């Protein structure tokens, strides 16, 4: 198997995906476009959560809090000045004049900048929170991060000057399109993938499998956990920004336990610790949810789809706890390697 054909295969994958997106983009099918953008947002969220919960085994219930912060911060930054004056009259003066709407050609650079700024700020918050919380393990960290989610929610509800409190934050410019959403999704997947096979990733897995043994051979526990938490927060905030500029109006109630549970369902079904599992989990749940939603709309039995999803989730936890893929990865490389004519030497190390 040569490196060149691998690169070619990956390029081919990207080309196929781009062609698909271009086709969808040109089709003008708003419903399907929305669904595919939604899928990208969930892909980012699941992969981000997987870094902590899967790779390091520090189960976080707080990532939707990072998403919420990302959504609000980026939306405040890109909100047009007139809307800012109308909706957020009490914004501090240093923020009131900020409007990131710069464009380079067709590219909304301002939106990109706002996303990055939001993600970096949220990463900083995650670093501070993580320094404290990553000392905990097991379900204690789960509940402590849930506490973080509640704190974020209370702050969003009460920080009227910035968030309009419980009222809907609206008139966000709809910058998000298929291309933005999927570029970020691919980046998130790529980063997680590379991280898993990097020395940092191996530290994450090692301290998860056996903390004491890892410490005994000099692998640190805090650093890999913190890294996974902060990178996960970064991408969760990105997902928040994409979401904010996709739905254009939202309120703090969105970013709470239902969404958290949905992302966790995707993660657990796909397999904690597997990046490709996250992708499969996200796709499956999006498709199943959409199907169930239609049944719900037709029969008016609201709540039924959540019950079915929860039952599926329960069955997975009881009968196949490691999820569909466990920690394994579906590998394009290996698939190609199997189909390609046998190379001369068999023991080529797997490409990173």
């Amino acid at each position: 198997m040569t490196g060149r054909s691998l690169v070619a295969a990956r390029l081919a994958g990207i080309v196929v995906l781009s062609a698909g997106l271009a086709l969808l983009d040109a089709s003008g099918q708003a419903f399907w476009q929305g669904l595919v953008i939604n899928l990208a947002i969930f892909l980012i969220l699941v992969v981000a959560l997987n870094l902590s919960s899967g790779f390091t085994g520090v189960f976080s219930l707080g990532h939707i809090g990072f998403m919420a912060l990302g959504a609000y911060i980026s939306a405040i930054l890109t909100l047009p000045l007139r809307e800012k004056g109308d909706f957020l009259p009490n914004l501090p003066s240093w923020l009131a004049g900020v409007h990131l709407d710069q464009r380079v050609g067709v590219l909304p650079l301002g939106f990109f900048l706002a996303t990055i700024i939001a993600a970096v700020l949220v990463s900083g918050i995650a670093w501070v929170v993580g320094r404290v919380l990553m000392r905990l393990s097991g379900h204690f960290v789960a509940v402590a991060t849930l506490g973080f989610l509640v704190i974020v929610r209370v702050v969003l509800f009460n920080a009227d000057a910035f968030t309009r409190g419980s009222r809907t934050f609206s008139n966000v410019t709809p910058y998000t399109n298929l291309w933005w959403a999927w570029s970020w999704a691919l980046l998130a997947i790529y980063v997680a993938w590379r991280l898993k096979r990097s020395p940092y990733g191996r530290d994450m897995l090692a301290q998860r499998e056996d903390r004491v043994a890892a410490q005994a051979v000099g692998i640190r526990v805090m650093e890999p956990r913190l890294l996974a938490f902060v990178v996960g927060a970064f991408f969760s905030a990105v997902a928040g920004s994409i979401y904010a500029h996709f739905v254009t109006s939202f309120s703090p109630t969105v970013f709470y336990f239902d969404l958290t549970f949905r992302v966790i369902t995707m993660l657990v079904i796909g397999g904690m610790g597997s990046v490709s599992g996250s992708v499969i989990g996200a796709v499956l749940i999006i498709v199943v949810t959409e199907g169930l939603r239609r049944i719900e709309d037709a029969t008016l039995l609201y709540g039924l789809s959540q019950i079915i999803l929860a039952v599926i989730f329960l069955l997975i936890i009881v009968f196949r706890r490691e999820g569909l893929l466990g920690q394994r990865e579906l590998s394009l490389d290996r698939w190609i390697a199997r189909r390609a004519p046998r190379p001369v030497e068999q023991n080529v190390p797997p490409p990173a």
Partner: protein
Amino acid sequence: MGPYLLQQIVNALSAGSLYALMAVGLAMVFGILRLINFAHGDLMMIAAYVAAFAIGAGIPLAVAIPVMIIATVGIGLLMERAAYRPLRGAPDVAILLSSFAVGQILQNGTLLTTRLASKPQQIAFPSPDLLSGVVTIGAITIPKVNLVSFVIGIVLLGLLSVFVTRTTLGLSMRAAAEDLGAAQLMGIKVNRVVAVAFAIGSGLAAVAGLLFAVQAGQINPYIGFTPVLKAFIAAVIGGFGSISGAVVGGFALGFLEVFATTVTGLGDILPPGSVAPGVREFLQQWLPSSLASYRDAFVFVALIVVLLVRPQGILGRRDRGDTL
């Protein structure tokens, strides 16, 4: 100031006894199975709905309350059998997640049921006369339900303490909490002990659910979430897994909340001349009454601090390997 303070203490005691009732249910199950049962709050919610429908249908309280308790206990036992027993021995997080799934099922099941019964999602709770209105003692006025919550809380917790210390079943329960495997080896029927723990926990959740619904005035399928989080905090503060710890933690949380609510805005309510002007200004500046709406955030910060500084809680023992 005197009556005001007294009133706040009564408020704290009444909130505390509700938290204690819930926290004990959580702690009992946690002590044996190391399961944080997040669906506990949804049991409260279901109890509130059963009570609302029963009272709304004109069934007398003396019948409605037992019906509510039996229904809730039944669901509690069912959930243990279906969702938790198959996971015994599984990693902590797996069981925790399964309790989330159970909670989702209970919430949406209630949603679906109200829909099928063509009732609105959010209903006003038909407060029984026994629990509505206020009691005036001297200068202080207490909602009757707060007083009743406190009395019922104390009575039930007392009964529970007798059960746990004086009966064979209670002793087996403590043995199972000490070491599940060893208890099994000693011939204790662990499944029965776990079922009893769930039954008692669900019964307490039912009573707490009724009192909570009366205090809230309105119920919807999602009301269980916040109380269970609070109860969890109470249990952690007290020392998770210990029943007496949960009681202590429940009351501690009640006081903590009332303190957080009263200390904000204190600068405005202190009678003139009772403090130096500087102190008043300081209080108004740094603890304005607008901060009171951040109460829940404050409580969760307290939780995180306790988890970090004293993860075993006030009464708990150092647990194995929960922090680095």
